[in-house]
């Protein structure tokens, strides 16, 4: 088993809003191993993007992050901004859903990669320029040498996402945080970007946390998956194991909501209702109001994420009962 690169323990993120403090990440426990692709799925508002931002401490005060973020054994939570900057964008890179808003529109793509190389590597001027073209080539920009001086608006959506990956790769990070990198893209371009991430992981040995709401994307590109609900991890495990036999009622519900090719034009089984607003869960399972399996046992406390064997963890009292619910049949 590969060593954990990143460990989150009791990660909590609180944002300040007009209506008071809002806890959007509510005790996340997660580990990321060297070189793996970890999927982070859940509905809007489940806290998956916020978890990602919290790792890099991209939370604007008075919002705050607490708990432990152990990066190679070192806790990032107490670090001060200058120390954090040596890790953010260098050891841990990040890419976003909307490349157009993350890229600087008045600087050429090449220039933005050069900047990152200057900030995070010891390369000389010529070496930086060569490396820039190399990086664009690596991420699959055709005729990279000619396109170095192009501006983001001259790139298509897929090309922009490739450029953003090239910028993130400039510092040779050990972990890439990808926040819905393909959500805005067409399916054939999404496929190309996901395959690119898989290849990069192979060649560079870089770990990736891939935030997505698409279970298909998880099935096709991740090694392990963490399912998030109401600011917490509901279940985590190998993708094939989780998809074959979910051990949290929410995971089961998500998988059942997806149309099945064998049951064309028949009613789907949606999860009724909506996720709870942040801060309203209290000390019980957050999924109770929408759960078909809920019993009095679920009311006792918020179920902790516990090991259930096979490297899997789940925070569900009724994990065993789910196995009888033949969701795939």
């Amino acid at each position, binding site marked *: 088993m590969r060593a954990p690169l990143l460990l989150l323990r009791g990660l909590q993120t609180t944002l300040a809003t007009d209506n008071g403090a809002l806890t959007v990440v509510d005790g996340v426990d997660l580990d990321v191993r060297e070189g793996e692709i970890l999927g982070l799925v859940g509905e809007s508002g489940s806290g998956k993007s916020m978890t990602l931002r919290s790792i890099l401490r991209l939370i604007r005060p008075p919002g705050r992050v607490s708990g432990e973020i152990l990066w190679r054994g070192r806790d990032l939570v107490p670090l001060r901004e200058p120390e954090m900057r040596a890790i953010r964008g260098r050891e841990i890179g990040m890419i976003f859903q909307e490349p157009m808003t993350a890229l600087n529109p008045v600087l050429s793509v090449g220039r933005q990669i050069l900047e990152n190389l200057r900030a995070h590597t010891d390369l000389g001027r010529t070496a930086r320029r060569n490396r820039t073209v190399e990086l664009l080539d690596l991420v699959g920009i055709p005729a990279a040498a000619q396109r170095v001086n192009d501006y983001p608006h001259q790139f298509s959506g897929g090309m922009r996402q490739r450029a953003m990956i090239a910028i993130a790769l400039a510092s040779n990070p050990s972990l890439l945080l990808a926040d819905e990198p393909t959500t805005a893209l067409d399916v*054939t371009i999404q496929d190309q970007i996901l*395959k690119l991430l898989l290849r990069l992981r192979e060649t560079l040995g870089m770990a990736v946390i891939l935030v997505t709401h698409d279970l*298909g994307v998880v099935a096709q590109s991740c090694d392990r998956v963490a399912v998030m609900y109401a600011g917490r991890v509901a279940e985590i495990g190998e*993708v094939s194991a989780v998809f074959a036999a979910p051990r949290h009622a929410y995971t089961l519900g998500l998988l059942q909501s*997806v*149309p099945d090719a064998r049951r*064309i034009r028949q009613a789907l089984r949606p999860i009724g209702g909506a996720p709870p607003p942040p801060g309203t869960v209290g000390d019980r399972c957050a999924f109770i109001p929408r759960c078909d399996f809920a019993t009095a046992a679920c009311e006792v406390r918020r179920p902790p994420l516990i090991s259930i064997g096979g490297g899997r963890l789940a925070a569900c009292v009724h994990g065993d009962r789910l196995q009888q619910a033949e969701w795939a049949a």
Partner: protein
Amino acid sequence: MMDTGLLPVLSTEAAPSSPGAPLLVVEKLTKTFPRRQSLRSLIRGEPRKRVHALSDVDLTIHRGETLGIVGESGCGKSTLARCLVRLYRTDSGRIAYAGLDVGSLKGADLRRFNRRVQMVFQDPYGSLNPRMTVRATLAEALSVHRMRPPREIEGRINELMDLVHLPRGAARRRPHEFSGGQRQRIGIARALALEPDCLVADELVSALDVSVQAQMVNLLLELQQRLQLTVLFIAHDLRLVRHLSHRVAVMYLGRVVELAETEALFTRPRHPYTQALLKAAPELDPRLRSTSDAVRGELPSPVNPPPGCPFHTRCPDAIALCMTVRPELKPLLDGRLAACHIAAAEDGLAAL
């Protein structure tokens, strides 16, 4: 809060896959949009460039069926929807509704057509008036089209709320007080207020979370069965299109490249673009992984569509003929339509 409605399982017999009478027939529909021209090119007297959004589209939508339209952004699927509900004036071609040429309709006939074909938009927040309560929105639709005498409007609003499974009391509220899925229900209720025959659903569920998507899919299936609606379901999510559609048309660069019964299309796609699209769509089964790209390259510019087959620039099977001669959308042996030289040759219908 919201009732998701435990539906009875809707049988496939309810809406027969055998075609009913044609309801909407689209012939050689073409739509282009002018591009902004620079001053320099204007002074030089260069011709204005145009985006070719739809080129010679032929389609037939049968009464009672769901026709799925898939394709990537820029393929023309939304333009097609907007042409059908007359939000865009077409450049050329013909749309016939129940045998009548829509382009020549006037007065009461035109208003009747407007009522019969209703569109539901992807972004209900952008298509509902934020200052109007749901009741006001529905009442306006009902009175403008004189669907009900004034004293019956209140009752009809309640019926419509029931139909889309929203609590009647919610009619007092404004759009911002609803969640995305609920707003989408309001959009549907507004469309249904006019008792349409045909619903054009443009990316109806694309912005919703998967569990809410499933609720909307169920609603659509239920309404279609209850009201005998014909549905044009436009989406980029292949899994949803497969689930809902009787037949599916695949569009690429403003043209229909393949049109077939849903199962035939998904189990044995014949056009290389359909094949690429299906291969690129992420399967839910982790055991079915591939490591190679489904298709290379990106969509060519719709300002200068490539000559010959529009897909030849990305097609793995393209031959010299594909670069010069555009394949027509023609029936293959099993009756489906495809616009591909190679598929036609495979079926012995053309020589290469």
